[in-house]
């Protein structure tokens, strides 16, 4: 608990100490990816379903948010809602197919990955709308109401830092609420022993689907933010490597925790810039670090810390 409070405290206070676009940008990307990682952990770490569908939702929502905002003249925040809705619809379709047919672990992963890939190819070749491989340049910025100065666009590292941090906090909050409730109990039951859960009157299909839908819906906001922050959207958003990256973040930080994914995201986003070596060596080191962390700490950084704290406590 205290560790978490400390982490949040540090994150919110950071801009006071850390100036400069460079460092803050690392954190901004950390937060956006942490949103993906946390929501992925909701599906994977808490409900036990290894989903590879995040890239699809990430990309589709990025495109939708931008297209709605520009073509329908909607403000950014309104535009994110239909995108989230779209994410839910996609999740419900793909999810119900997979869960109806009782696809587990490996197979579930592969089928979700397949759907994600097909969506990517579709987005990539639907030139008239998505501008295909050329991608879309996002000039606009999200706006907020600021007391005194009215509606202002969100510009500059500090503003974005807090914008993304708040979005992350909200995501974590929603997830935490769900997980602390009966919903979380059902997710856990499904992860730990599906058959037992069934005999105890838990509708396994429904709750798997629920977790999948909630996770993807929340993940969709990351897409919108990312698109507007980098100012450029292309089919690369839907690449498989995104799945791998998010998975790595969650495993590294600690699956089945809400803080773990954030830590993992911070490590994996910061690491490449922390290692100041020539390209190839850096990539090798990066891989080695991935492997050794997971072999030395199978429960991830936070998981290990918790276990250690527990041992010391007991």
């Amino acid at each position: 608990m205290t560790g978490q409070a400390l982490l949040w405290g540090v994150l919110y206070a950071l801009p006071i100490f850390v100036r400069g676009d460079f460092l803050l940008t690392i954190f901004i990307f950390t937060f956006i990816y942490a949103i993906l990682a946390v929501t992925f952990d909701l599906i994977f770490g808490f409900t036990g379903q290894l989903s590879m569908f995040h890239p699809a939702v990430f990309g589709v929502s990025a495109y939708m948010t931008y297209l709605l905002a520009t073509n329908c003249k909607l403000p950014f925040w309104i535009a994110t809602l239909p995108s989230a809705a779209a994410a839910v619809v996609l999740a419900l379709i793909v999810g119900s197919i997979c869960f109806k047919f009782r696809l587990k672990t490996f197979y579930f992963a592969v089928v979700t990955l397949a759907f994600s890939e097909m969506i990517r190819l579709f987005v990539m070749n639907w030139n008239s709308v998505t501008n295909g491989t050329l991608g879309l340049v996002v000039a606009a910025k999200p706006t907020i109401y600021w007391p005194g100065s009215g509606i202002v666009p969100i510009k500059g590292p500090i503003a974005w830092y807090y914008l993304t941090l708040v979005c992350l906090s909200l995501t974590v909050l929603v997830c935490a609420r769900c997980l602390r409730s009966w919903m979380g109990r059902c997710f856990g039951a499904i992860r730990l022993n599906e058959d037992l859960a069934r005999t105890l009157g838990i509708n396994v299909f429904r709750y798997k689907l629920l977790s999948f839908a909630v996770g993807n819906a929340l993940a969709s906001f990351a897409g919108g933010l990312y698109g507007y922050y980098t100012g450029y959207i292309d089919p690369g958003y839907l690449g498989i490597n995104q799945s791998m990256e998010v998975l790595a973040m969650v495993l590294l930080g600690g699956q089945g925790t809400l803080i773990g994914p954030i830590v993992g995201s911070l490590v994996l986003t910061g690491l490449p810039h922390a290692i100041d070596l020539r390209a190839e060596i850096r990539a090798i080191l990066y891989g080695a670090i991935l492997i050794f962390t997971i072999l030395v700490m199978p429960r991830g950084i936070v998981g290990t810390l918790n276990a250690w704290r527990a041992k010391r406590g007991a």
Partner: protein
Amino acid sequence: MKRVSLILAVLALIAAPAAAQDVVKIGQIEAQTGANAIYGWMSSQGTALAVDEINKAGGFKVGNKTYKLQLIALDTRGEPKEATVQLKRLVEVDQAKYIFGPFLSNVFLAVRPYAAEFNGKLLMWGGATRIHDYVGTPGHEFLMRTWNWDAGKNGFGELMVDNLVKTTGAKKIAMLFQNDQGGKVLEDIYVPMLKQKGIESRLDYFEPGTKDFSAVLAKIAAWKPDFLFPGYADSYIYDIVRQATETGQLTKFFLVRGSLGPGLKNKDGIEEYMVYVPKHFEEAEKKDPKVAKFVKAYKDFYKRDFPYDQAPLCSSSCYDHVYMLVEAMKKAGTVDDPAAVKKALMSMTYDGLWKIRFDDKGEAIFNFDVVRLKKGGALEVQHINPN
């Protein structure tokens, strides 16, 4: 928590600015690893080589002060996310005023907004096709494109197509492009161009990562084109040419930009292989001492034999760019006013490995060779100088 503070510490370490007076910093953001590394990796090689030579020669004099170059080459892995952070690092932490790259359009488009904030305080020159859309436009004075453009007055594509039609009377051209930014840009340029020149054309895309083209090639062959026009990406042309000639499906190739290697390798399979190369190195090495020197320097520096394919196109160009930049600094009499340096660049013609100058928008124009390869390997080189 530990981790977080640790990383912060490490980052802080990097962040410690080490700006010495007599050093001019050159930042570079290119993909040196990853699937799209081919251009970026070679460019960074050329740059590194030039910087090393200049420093070994004791740096260069601007006004009455001698400067050395410091190259900070960062690997974007072709990821916009990485590149954005890295550019910010280069500009803020290292306070580099001269940025080489990027070669990848998706990277460029992601870093552009940030770079634009430093308009006038920065000079960025990259090869990315999409830079063409911005270079010379208001608010992008910091931007220069190191590649010549296909279409237009000095467009090499235009020249190539005219040349092809004039010499072969081709009527049907089949295009086979990689399904990515570059491919799409090519489509937008060449489909209308060919149409307007009264040439019948068809276009097929292939997924990046494709290695076996037999399906699409068979499809194209059934259409019976006069020439096959594969896109730019060097990594595919070897496979395309081999697979097309091996089965004798297609034997005439037309590359507006590419390398000679695939043609030479399949010289008995091809009937005709017409290609634009920035320089026909095999020949130039014998004639032009500058080229010979460069090739030798490359071999010594990297302890590796010189790749005569498209790759040198990048390495040699970036090699030239470094020298050109230094010349411009001397000419402008300053090292820390990118605007002045750009003015100097725009007004000069650099005669290095290539003859490079910039058009009024800030896009490079340089001489190149058109090489025509016949069955059996008969070569016919034609030097074209748009200057």
